């Protein structure tokens, strides 16, 4: 029984260690630079037009960052670490999505401009 119990504790310890590693061994010291990195990436996403072209993803990043800060204040460091990972992936995605969506709109506008020009040409030719 003692052996089983000790093994039980051992397994739990290994599980905790594993989760600790996976979540970047979250401590307040390691979380601070990660919070800053997420803030920076959110800023870059905004510079790339995410507020207009990827608002939902940007909002998700901001919400998760805010939740992560609250979790740090509440001492829930593992939760904060998980939220920061997710916020970072949102912010990175927003940085890709925003210029892409902007580009798609520009393409649509170009199509429209070309169509209008062709229409004008048709009218000009008809008016000859």
């Amino acid at each position: 029984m003692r052996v089983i119990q000790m093994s039980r504790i051992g397994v739990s310890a290994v599980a905790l260690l594993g989760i600790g590693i996976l979540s970047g061994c979250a401590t307040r010291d390691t979380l601070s630079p990660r919070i800053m990195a997420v803030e920076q990436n959110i800023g870059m996403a905004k510079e790339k037009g995410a507020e207009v072209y990827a608002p939902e993803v940007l909002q998700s990043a901001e919400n998760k960052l805010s939740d992560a800060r609250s979790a740090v204040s509440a001492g829930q460091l593992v939760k904060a670490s998980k939220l920061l990972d997710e916020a970072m992936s949102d912010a990175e995605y927003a940085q890709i999505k925003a210029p892409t969506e902007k580009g798609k709109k520009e393409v649509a506008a170009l199509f429209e401009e070309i169509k209008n020009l062709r229409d004008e040409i048709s009218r000009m030719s008809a008016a000859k």
Partner: protein
Amino acid sequence: MKSSQLIKQFGALALAGTLGAFLAGCSASGDSTSRQIAKDRLEQARANYALAKDSPMVDSYAVKHLLDAEKTLKEAELASKKANAPPINPALIYSQAEQDALHDDVARLAYVSNRKSEGAVSYAEGMVADNDKLRLGKEKAEVQLQKSSIEKKRLQRDVEEMNSALERSRQELSLASSEAERARIMADIQAKEALLAKAQAAAKTEEALALAAANADDAERARLELALLLKELSELQGQLTDRGIVLTVGDVLFATAKADLNASAQGSMVKIGAFLNKNPTRNLLIEGHTDSVGGDEYNQGLSEQRAASVKKALVGLDIASERIVTIGYGKRFPVSGIESKTGRQQDRRVDVIILNAGVKPESQFRK
């Protein structure tokens, strides 16, 4: 109470306390919720990865992003396997909090993988949009030119008609028999001259506007083309400089201590080649550099060979040999300024400089 029972209870309490403090944040929800979220997210991550993997666009433009998504998805799958594995020994079953923590981790990894797959698709779509912009920009310029040409012809016709009318009025003037008639015709001529001047000015303005629009379109297309090239050659760390575009073929793109380019670099060469083919007035200067390890002679030789290797690859892609000049600088121009493994790796490189239009490579040698 037997000691084994004490140990059991103590162990359980201590563990519960530790886990409670450690996992309180991410495991407030019940096991079924954590498990379900992890399951849903993993399914979504798998589906989005499959979608990205099957996309020819992603295959062309976002392989790196896709590999990143694949790596994270594998981590999520591994975590899921661990979280859902049946206990080998029933006595070693995970507690509720432990199970929640494991499922939360699956959910986290699946979420990240999902975003990376979406990012791969979006990045590829962005590249397609950039290419479309370039193509449509050219089409728009052509249609504008067509419209402008019709407009110009119309204005020219107006001018010609006005000139004829003016000529007729002048003939009328020479045949006029009375002062009053001459005065009327003169007024008519003046009015027609004013109209003609206006029409001529309109024709000139139209021509100038068309030319300015064409120049602006050309500049915009050139900018887009450069931006696209830099994006496509992201692994070459492209930089726009006064001399032109400097692309760095890093040490990792060469076989170790050799001058041969690896397969990844060959792909980049194809893109550089395509750009040079589209821009025949741009020449290339290829500079080979090494780190400070080893003798001068060896480094000089290696830098020259690596530069020559890049030239050979481009000449093999039908770029005229005379457009490309190579030079080896050995270890004279390090970029890192750091005596470390990473620093030395940065110093070992070949800089491919796509010079500005018309610039001769020899004029850009370093002193």
